[in-house]
């Protein structure tokens, strides 16, 4: 039994169970196919020569020796490719043209009969550069006197709602205004000001980026890729090359080996397209190496966030001013919308009467930052949740109580002006507090406890479409362009179809996304698939069900409302002994050639205008974490004893999978909190390897307790929302808050390394307060 979005008690057969994932068997036997497992006849292998400077003018390129190497089939440079691409802002060439803007940028592509030959050819290419002054820190890069990274910024085509500032490095300035912050500060009894920073981190999916591109003489493009979003990818290609979208076919690899936001846009795809544009009628493969993953793909934005908050003596929040700098690297990529979402959530999930947010997306001469699990959420929450704790402890208010007094609930107004509905953040905090016995359980020496919550916007309004094909024998195929990146959507979407159509789950299969066959979907991102595509496949299945019932009603000479489908049979309600199997329903009407096609398209109902990254969110990702830590005063090491994680997922279609997402996100959060960070010398990455850039292994994982809050969404399928991007968000601030509770020091710069903790302990012993921010870029 469950309560659906309308409050009605419903009995579901499959929704809310946790059937075995449909992809599991092929994955444990090694039969699951990923991009690198695909081989095409006559396929060539691409490699890319990359910039050795962070910022330099390209004076000349000599590829003549490389072209003569036996086995080399073609060489391409930016001069061959008069194109720019970018989803939000079109600023990125397929290969560098005229100048390079970061160390690691692609300059020359080579295609050869095998990778070894292509690599050898790279060594024979000579590029002469004239080095230009580079800038790495986003606050420095935002200054008027900073070296310009894109002189042409003012002329770039960009999406609505993106506000680049001509003549600067700021490629988006997002502003949010509510009330009057200056008046609010004047009315406050206390003012708190803090600056928080986060470093550059990497998705580190185990499968690197890969793509195979084939372009024929008529500019028809076929691209096989491990791209998270085939339709978004197709649009970016068609826009860049100025060709009709129907000329571009994007075929997803059947399975994608991890995504976390990093496999959107054009990464290896851009290299493969660049080569295939010049070398026609041959499939050309480009697989990134691990070094290219670190130096030439996508990273999470380093951030600098200033918060200023005014409060009354009794702890009432009156005003908050937020200034955020997002270091987006050499090209905008998803940066402008990351900056926008960061700004939307910059003040936190709290009711504050006066708010002013300025969020700046700033070019720097480093690798490109884009989407990564949380899409600004982890950086924003690191700042506002650390800041909330500082205020609570300074005022002597319990940090949980302080949050409970201000988090929004249904009927409240979000900072953006949107009415909050169907949201259970308070419940998340309550669950965590109860489970960890907040305020009552004793803690030992040098141990502490911390709490933090979060909100994260969902990209709105974007559509998702699906077809449901009922075969002659009653089995079902779901045509949907949601990619399977590990999140489990294949299973969840098939569960919804089986539930809605009334057939066994084993009868339902989901097709691999292919823009030639599976219908439109905006993206497999933003934790949007269960909600958006879930709605689309639910509609498509219901459409198919109604058609089958109509056919059966004719056969049985019954009224459609008296019929139902269960376990693949049509029944007269209340007459279980006379099943009419679906294939018979089809057969009686169409003989051996019967089929039914159901269709669904979901587009969220908008309460405010806006057709591209609105500030109105169809739902919010919400959650709270509590942690217990132990700090070693001698070494500065912090051991996380336990993580308590509660997330409002609306309705768990597949509860085991939801918990799996939360546990995985905690792993991400542990890495971000404690040790993941790019090390640089100028523009050079010093640790471009999984040997020197450490991600959590099994040894670093704490005990976890995951809790699902089911606050049903009025528009979600069965009330469901999303969960994938939530649980790495509140963990780092919860840890920092627990460290403060344990030993009284406050770390404001991620990651929380032992040396930072030791340094803070030393300064505390000497009676100093906070040190300066440590990793401003």
């Amino acid at each position, binding site marked *: 039994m469950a309560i659906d979005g309308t409050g009605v008690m419903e009995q579901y057969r499959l929704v809310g169970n*946790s059937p*075995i*994932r449909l*992809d*599991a*068997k*092929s*994955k*444990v*036997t*090694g*039969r*699951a*196919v*990923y991009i*690198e*497992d695909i081989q095409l006849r006559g396929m060539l292998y691409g490699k890319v020569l990359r910039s050795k400077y962070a910022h330099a003018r390209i004076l000349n390129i000599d590829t003549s020796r490389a072209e003569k190497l036996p086995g080399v089939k073609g060489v391409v440079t930016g001069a061959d490719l008069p194109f720019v691409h970018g989803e939000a802002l079109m600023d990125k060439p397929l290969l560098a043209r005229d100048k390079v803007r970061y160390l690691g940028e692609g300059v020359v592509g080579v295609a050869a009969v095998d990778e070894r030959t292509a690599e050898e050819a790279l060594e024979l290419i000579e590029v002469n550069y004239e080095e230009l002054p580079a800038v790495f820190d986003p606050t420095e890069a935002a200054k008027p006197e900073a070296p310009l990274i894109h002189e042409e910024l003012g002329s770039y085509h960009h999406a609505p709602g993106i506000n680049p500032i001509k003549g600067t490095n700021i490629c988006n300035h997002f502003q949010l205004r509510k009330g009057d912050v200056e008046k609010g500060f004047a009315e406050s009894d206390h003012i708190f000001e803090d600056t928080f920073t986060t470093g550059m981190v990497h*998705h*580190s*999916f*185990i*499968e*690197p980026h890969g793509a195979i591109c084939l372009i024929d003489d008529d500019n028809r493009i076929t691209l096989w890729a491990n791209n998270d979003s085939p339709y978004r990818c197709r649009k970016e290609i068609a826009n860049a090359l100025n060709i009709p979208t129907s000329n571009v076919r994007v075929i997803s690899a059947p*399975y*994608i*080996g*991890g*995504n*976390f936001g990093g496999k959107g846009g054009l990464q290896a795809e851009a290299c493969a397209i660049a080569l295939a544009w010049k070398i026609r009628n041959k499939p050309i493969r480009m697989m990134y*190496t*691990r070094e290219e993953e670190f130096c030439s793909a996508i990273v999470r934005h380093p951030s600098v966030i200033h918060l200023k908050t005014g409060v009354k003596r009794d702890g009432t929040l009156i005003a908050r001013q937020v200034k955020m700098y997002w270091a987006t690297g050499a090209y905008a990529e998803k940066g402008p919308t990351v900056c926008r979402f960061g700004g939307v959530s910059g003040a936190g999930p709290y009711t504050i009467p006066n708010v002013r947010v300025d969020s700046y997306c700033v070019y720097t001469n480093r690798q490109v930052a884009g989407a990564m699990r949380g899409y600004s959420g982890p950086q924003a929450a690191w700042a506002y949740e650390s800041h909330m704790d500082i205020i609570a402890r300074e005022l002597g208010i319990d940090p949980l109580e302080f949050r409970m007094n201000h988090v929004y609930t249904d009927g409240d107004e979000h900072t953006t002006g949107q009415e909050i509905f169907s949201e259970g953040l308070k419940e998340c905090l309550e669950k965590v507090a109860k489970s960890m016995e907040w305020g009552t359980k004793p803690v030992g020496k040098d141990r502490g406890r911390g709490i933090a919550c979060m909100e994260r916007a969902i990209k709105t309004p974007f559509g998702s479409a699906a077809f449901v094909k009922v075969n002659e024998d009653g089995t079902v195929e779901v045509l949907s362009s949601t990619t399977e*990146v*590990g*999140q*489990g959507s294949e299973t969840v979407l098939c569960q919804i179809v089986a539930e809605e159509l009334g057939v066994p789950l084993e009868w339902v299969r989901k097709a691999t996304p292919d823009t030639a066959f599976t219908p439109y979907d905006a993206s497999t991102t933003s934790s949007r698939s269960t909600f958006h595509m879930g709605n689309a496949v639910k509609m498509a299945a219901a459409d198919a069900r109604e058609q089958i019932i109509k056919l059966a009603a004719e056969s049985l000479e019954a009224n459609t409302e008296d019929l139902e489908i269960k376990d693949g049979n049509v029944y007269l309600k209340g007459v279980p002994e006379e099943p009419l199997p679906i294939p018979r329903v089809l057969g009686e009407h169409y003989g051996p050639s019967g089929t039914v096609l159901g269709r669904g398209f979901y587009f969220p109902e908008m309460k405010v205008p806006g057709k591209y990254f609105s500030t109105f969110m169809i739902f919010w990702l919400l959650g709270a974490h509590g942690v217990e830590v132990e700090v070693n005063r001698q070494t500065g090491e912090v051991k996380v004893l336990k993580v308590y994680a509660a997330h409002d997922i609306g309705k768990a279609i597949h509860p*085991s*999978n939801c918990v*799996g997402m939360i*546990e*995985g*996100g*905690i*792993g*991400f959060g542990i890495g971000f909190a404690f040790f993941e960070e790019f090390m640089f010398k100028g523009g050079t990455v010093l640790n471009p*390897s*999984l*040997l020197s850039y450490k*991600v*959590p*292994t*099994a*040894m670093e*994982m704490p005990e*976890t307790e995951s809790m699902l809050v089911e606050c049903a969404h009025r528009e979600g399928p069965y009330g469901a929302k999303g969960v994938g991007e939530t649980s790495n968000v509140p963990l780092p601030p919860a840890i920092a808050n627990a460290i403060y509770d344990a030993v009284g020091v406050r770390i404001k710069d991620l990651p929380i390394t032992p040396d930072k903790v030791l340094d803070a302990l030393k300064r505390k012993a000497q009676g100093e307060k906070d040190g300066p921010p440590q990793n401003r870029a």
Partner: protein
Amino acid sequence: MKKTITLHVNGDVYELSVEPNETLLDVLREELALTGTKKGCDSGACGACTVIVDGEPILSCMTLAVRCQYKEITTIEGLAQDGVLHPLQKSAIERGAVQCGFCTPGWLLSAKILLENNPAPTREEVRTAIAGNICRCTGYKRIEEAILAAAGQNTE
């Protein structure tokens, strides 16, 4: 200069002509089409390419194929016998230990050797055994539980 070698993989014998600097990983994937062994980092850091050679889990990206002459090699394709899943595979499926699946073949083979050498491991021993297999999706908890369950242990 290519060398002719004999490889014993999953009970089959292959005569192959390979470059002396070709890795076992590349030979398995490119010559034998055993693509279940995954290339994650090609530098011995992620564990996705783990295979079993003479009873030891090794990183096939760090092993030259010519060094594996006549040795018994088991890849993920050889873990199920006659279509019957290995208890670790069954357990991984049932415990929800699989998300993107890219690290799965590697840790399953590390775990196979663990359980052969130590049929009743503690959770700490399981963690140590898979410490070289990076999983970016699951947070490891389900993986540990799947291995413990395959060893017949209560994971509650």
